[in-house]
């Protein structure tokens, strides 16, 4: 969104973040050594298939994982380490400095309280407002996120809202205290395309107003193209590619990203009847028994097996200015434009 993503000090710095869950079959590696940062006012898109660890990663940042989770690495907010912070410290930061919009708005709103009460609560926790002042603040928030007739809507329960309205209400709660960082976990996945665009527009408008840093999680590269400044692509809990939107869309250096791009319907390319939408073959791997070497190798058309791909985990390496790829053959991938489709 903002044109100048400067080298400014990041709001949020995640480094080597790793999350494992003990399961009956062994350790489940949900997030593996993920490193990235978000600058003030920047929007980072996080893309990956279902189960790639996007939600677990954001929950780790918020300190909301169940006790069973084993989290290592570092998450710094304005230079302050959050991993291992006390519940009290987290309570102060959550909702005021870092806020989150969840995936499933119906399940994420409390069914027995009115939407208004839930938005007002978000305000009241971090601001000294009471009575009609509090109510007005909450109604104004509903208005900001584009809910028509907000004072009547204030009294209604979540089940009386439509899907798009519920997602807006979630956003209203998240922005109640002008957070520095907003984590939006698939805010539009359950919505139809028009509503999706409206909700994204609300996020953009809020960002313009308060220079919030947004971490936008989605499995839809198309959503990212419109709103993000930079993109991180995740596969099986690992970061496989990261770069500016231009890097990712026009100069991708990773087969998985290329696969995702090829599966997008393209407006700028005429589609012949024989042109089927490309799908990445195969299933995502088990996170307990990850494939050896590159986790993507069983599905990768470029894989050299046996060889480097199933022998050695590819490290994330620089392939351009601010552009990183975790592929043994990243250099070659770049030059084979369109090889996948």
């Amino acid at each position: 969104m903002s044109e100048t993503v400067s080298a400014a000090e990041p709001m949020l710095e995640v480094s080597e973040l790793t999350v494992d869950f003990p399961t009956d079959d062994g350790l489940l590696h949900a997030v593996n050594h993920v490193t990235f940062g978000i600058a003030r006012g920047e929007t980072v898109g996080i893309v990956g298939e279902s189960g790639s660890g996007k939600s677990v990663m954001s929950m780790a940042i918020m300190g909301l994982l169940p006790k069973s989770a084993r989290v290592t690495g570092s998450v710094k907010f304005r230079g302050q380490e959050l991993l291992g912070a006390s519940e009290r410290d987290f309570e102060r930061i959550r909702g005021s400095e870092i806020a989150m919009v969840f995936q499933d708005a119906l399940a994420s709103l409390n069914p027995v309280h009115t939407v208004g009460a839930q938005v007002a609560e978000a305000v009241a926790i971090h601001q000294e407002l009471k009575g009609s002042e509090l109510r007005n603040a909450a109604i104004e928030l509903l208005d900001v996120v584009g809910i028509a007739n907000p004072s009547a809507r204030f009294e209604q329960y979540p089940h009386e809202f439509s899907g798009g309205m519920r997602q807006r209400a979630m956003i209203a709660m998240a922005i109640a205290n002008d957070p520095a960082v907003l984590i939006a976990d698939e805010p539009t996945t359950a919505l139809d395309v028009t509503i999706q665009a409206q909700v994204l527009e609300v996020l953009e408008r809020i960002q313009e107003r308060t220079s919030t840093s947004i971490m936008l999680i989605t499995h839809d590269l198309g959503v990212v193209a419109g709103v993000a400044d930079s993109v991180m692509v995740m596969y099986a809990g690992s970061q496989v590619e990261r770069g500016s939107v231009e890097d990712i869309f026009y100069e991708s250096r990773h087969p998985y990203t290329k696969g995702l791009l090829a599966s997008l319907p393209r407006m700028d390319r005429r589609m012949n009847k024989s042109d089927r939408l490309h799908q990445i073959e195969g299933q995502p791997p088990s996170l307990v028994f990850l494939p050896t070497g590159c986790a993507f190798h069983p599905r990768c058309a470029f894989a050299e097996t046996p060889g480097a791909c199933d022998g050695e985990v590819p490290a994330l390496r620089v392939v351009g200015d601010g552009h990183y790829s975790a592929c043994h053959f990243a250099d070659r991938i770049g030059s084979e434009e369109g090889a996948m489709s």
Partner: protein
Amino acid sequence: MPSMLTYISRRLLFSIPVILVASFLLFWMVRSTFDPCVKLRASKDVEAVARCETRLHLNDPIPMQYLGWANDAVHGDLGQSSRTNEEVSAMVPRALWYTVQLIFWGVLISAFAAVALGVYSALKQYSVLDYTFTGASFVGLAMPPFWFGLIAIELLAIMPKQWLGLDEPLFYFVGLHSGAEKGFGADYARHLVLPVMTLTVQIIASWSRFQRSSMLDVMSADYVRTARAKGVPRRDVVVHHALRNALVPLVTVMALDIGALFGGLIITETIFSIPGMGQLFVRSLQAGDAEVLVVWTVVTAGFIVVFNLLADVLYGVMDPRVRVT
């Protein structure tokens, strides 16, 4: 709120036919099992028997008998006990008052105990106390209430009295008052402890189990996570978001179980010599007291219907999603 009113009135309307049908069936069952004029027949006074039969329309078909009975009942005449010759309309309310006291205290204490135990166990899942409560509740559920009552009398009344050399036991086990005592003071409380314990041990055990699992469900719900993500302090998350939702199913189960408590009363009132509905039932049954039994069964059925209604209404009050249907 208007939707709430329609909801309640609709449920109320539904319960009227239920009461009517139930009272007819119960009347039919009791009339075909017991003969209300049995005492007079034994006296061989043919005229008195005939009078009794006419008064109760015994020679008419059952529906006509029922209408006659219902008509009298609406006018305040519930018949006479063949056991004591007392008016049924005086006996049943007197017994009911004792029972209502037992149920009131029993439910109040059980509700608080069950919620406290259930919430604690859920928040401290797999802690030593959680295991202790789980074990205790299995014992409570498995132990027959009459046995529990007798053990409680022995352990809490008789044995402490002997050891401490008291004149009076700390907790009484006969009636709800001693001698000329009245009111709701210390004497009353000392009489209540053991019968209320006996009456509630099983429901505390089952309600606290229920509350524990309902609380565990809710604590992992997405909206509880949302509350935490907003920075709501843990205490408020537990009370305002989790418990408030976990109570919805519990309250329904409670309202339904209270009707079933009438069964437990028969044992409790017998052990502790409390002249309530349970005792009245046992004595009337033994004496074949048809007129009392009809009223007893109808009143009991009425209670169950009322608590079912209450369950529905509370469910609607506590869960806004229910009201629309």
